[in-house]
């Protein structure tokens, strides 16, 4: 893993992402570049499967930094997000001290709250110095955590330090590159968004999506890739409960090449629709006439 310098311009950032197979919109490259320059967290919101998490992975790989991921869920607390004391090890240490005949309480308490008994969780790991440079911290699906955690996060993101009552304050020598993603299962508080640079990641337009499919599924035929992208773009115009994301397009294209398909047929689409649409209601709507119509538009030669 080689460390490369931070890009010097928006074009540099675009190049960096493209070199790793992430074909970003210019606006996304701009906001990413700015977040690196300004040292502000990047807050990405958008539908599932548009490449929010991917950008953190690509950035860490391209810059040669460590990627630290914190997957949020309801009930996430300090013990699983920041740090925890290893009580079993501490109890053993107390017993050993007893056996050795140490009765000095002050000494004992400073002994068992030493760093070696500290279990470091993602947020604390992200504050630690790293030879390769500050790590990339990915806080994934923040909307799943509760508001209380958000407030705590706000504190960490404002001064990149954590205070552990028994131990002291740990401060990051260089703040990590922070990327926060949200699927909007609830609204994130304004206070946190104010600290970040915000970007709504949208579905790509046809041309870009075609490029993405070609770069991610290299052995797909030109004809099929065009049909796949047209079909998916047409699906997004339909009023589905959950439109397919880029990730679904790539999945579907991969599935079709696995089946050695050369072009789309109604039979083939019907059998593989599960790679694109994940709700029964949506799949039921894509039967019969609707499917025929969309398919006809996608496969017409123009």
């Amino acid at each position: 893993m080689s460390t490369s310098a931070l890009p010097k311009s928006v074009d540099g950032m675009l190049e960096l992402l493209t070199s790793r197979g992430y074909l970003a919109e210019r606006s996304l490259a701009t906001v990413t570049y700015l977040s690196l320059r300004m040292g502000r967290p990047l807050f990405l919101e958008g539908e599932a499967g548009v490449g929010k998490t991917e950008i953190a992975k690509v950035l860490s790989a391209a810059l040669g930094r460590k990627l630290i991921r914190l997957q949020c869920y309801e009930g996430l607390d300090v013990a699983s997000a920041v740090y925890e004391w290893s009580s079993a090890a501490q109890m053993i240490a107390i017993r050993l001290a007893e056996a050795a005949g140490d009765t000095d309480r002050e000494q004992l308490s400073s002994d068992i709250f030493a760093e070696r008994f500290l279990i470091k969780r993602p947020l604390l790991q992200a504050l630690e110095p790293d030879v390769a440079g500050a790590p990339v911290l990915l806080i994934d699906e923040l909307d799943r955590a509760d508001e209380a955690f958000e407030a705590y996060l706000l504190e960490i993101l404002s001064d990149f330090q954590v205070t552990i009552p028994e131990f002291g304050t740990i401060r990051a020598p260089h703040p990590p590159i922070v990327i926060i993603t949200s699927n909007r299962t609830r609204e994130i508080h304004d206070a946190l968004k104010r600290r970040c640079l915000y970007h709504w990641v949208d579905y790509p337009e046809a041309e870009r999506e075609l490029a993405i499919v070609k770069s991610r599924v290299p052995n797909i035929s030109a004809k099929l890739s065009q049909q796949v992208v047209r079909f998916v773009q047409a699906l997004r115009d339909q009023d589905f409960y959950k439109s397919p994301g880029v990730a679904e397009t790539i999945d579907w294209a991969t599935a079709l090449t696995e089946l050695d398909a050369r072009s789309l047929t109604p039979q083939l689409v019907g059998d593989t629709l599960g790679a694109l649409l994940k709700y029964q209601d949506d799949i039921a709507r894509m039967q019969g006439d609707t499917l025929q119509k969309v398919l006809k538009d996608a496969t017409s030669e123009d």
Partner: protein
Amino acid sequence: MTTIDHLNPPTGHMADNVVGFARALRAAGIPVGPGAVIDALNALQAIEIGNRADVYATLEAIFVKRHEHMLIFAQAFDLFFRAAEDWKHMLDSVPLPDHAKKKPPPASRRVQEALAQPSMRDETEQVQEQELRLSVSDKEILQKKDFAQMSAAEIAEVTRAIANMKLPQAELRTRRYQPDAKGLRLDMRRTLRSSLRTGGEIIDIRKLGRIEKPAPIVALLDISGSMSEYTRLFLHFLHAITDARKRVSVFLFGTRLTNVTRALRAKDPDEALASCSSSVEDWAGGTRIATSLHSFNKLWGRRVLGQGAIVLLISDGLEREADAKLAFEMDRLHRSCRRLIWLNPLLRYSAFEAKAQGIKMMLPHVDEFRPVHNLTSMEGLIEALSAPPPPHHMSRIRSAA
């Protein structure tokens, strides 16, 4: 600079005016004590009364102690001192407001009513009258009276009653823990720390229990013509709820859906309602329940229905275009929240039968079906919100369907 004499405050027109003004403020809902009046008189003596802005700033500094009162103060000041061009003599007549050309701003109705009260009465007399106005039997009548048949004064009483309602505390157990002596989970960290006092001997065990929090509430409120009498009061009710708990989202729908959650966060109910009205375009138009529910499900459902939300659907269900789409969207809404309570003012008629097509479509998909047309039913709603949800309480619905 004049010296300030606390025992002999200045008198004359200015004194009368300031006392009258203070009375008007009090009537409009800003707490102003006699001490503040004396302070104000002294302060006005202390500044050289030369222009309106100085007087305004002075009186505001003394009478307004909370941010949300600033707006009411501004309106009252404008009305009260409108004609007083000559600030040296501050006219002693109270100009009553004529009807403003433009739409009156929020809170102005309260201020105007306050100013219109005869100002020559004794204060104590007014207070007594306030208490007498609502005798016990009146309260009972008010409890049962339909919102749609109330006079303006009764509506004002009801609004006050709504503001004082004890709000629901239906507690949901979250997945986070806090120190709790009766908890079930061992808190190793605190146990160890306390054991250090006894040289590492664990004597008292510390525990953790789950944090409980009120469930989020999402209200979908029908503002079509047929619901107009109830709409305003529901908004008052929702405003009172929004005040007390953080997680309340409010949507209004007529022909389209509008999110007014932020508009309702203003502290003053009039101001909150005014900013709601300004953000809604189709006030008291027709209803398209299915379309509105569809856009809610599509755009907002996944954003506000997490964390075990309770949905209050407030509508009479009179939908012309009732078809399978309505049932489908209701079903989706029902399946994506913890509890769906339908509040329908039509239930006030004891002989209510679900005959309308729309109502028949919607009924199978709600957990509870309640009337909401008077204070008693609102209190019932609060009790229902506080109680643990009944296990699929569908008996009433089956009989109605």
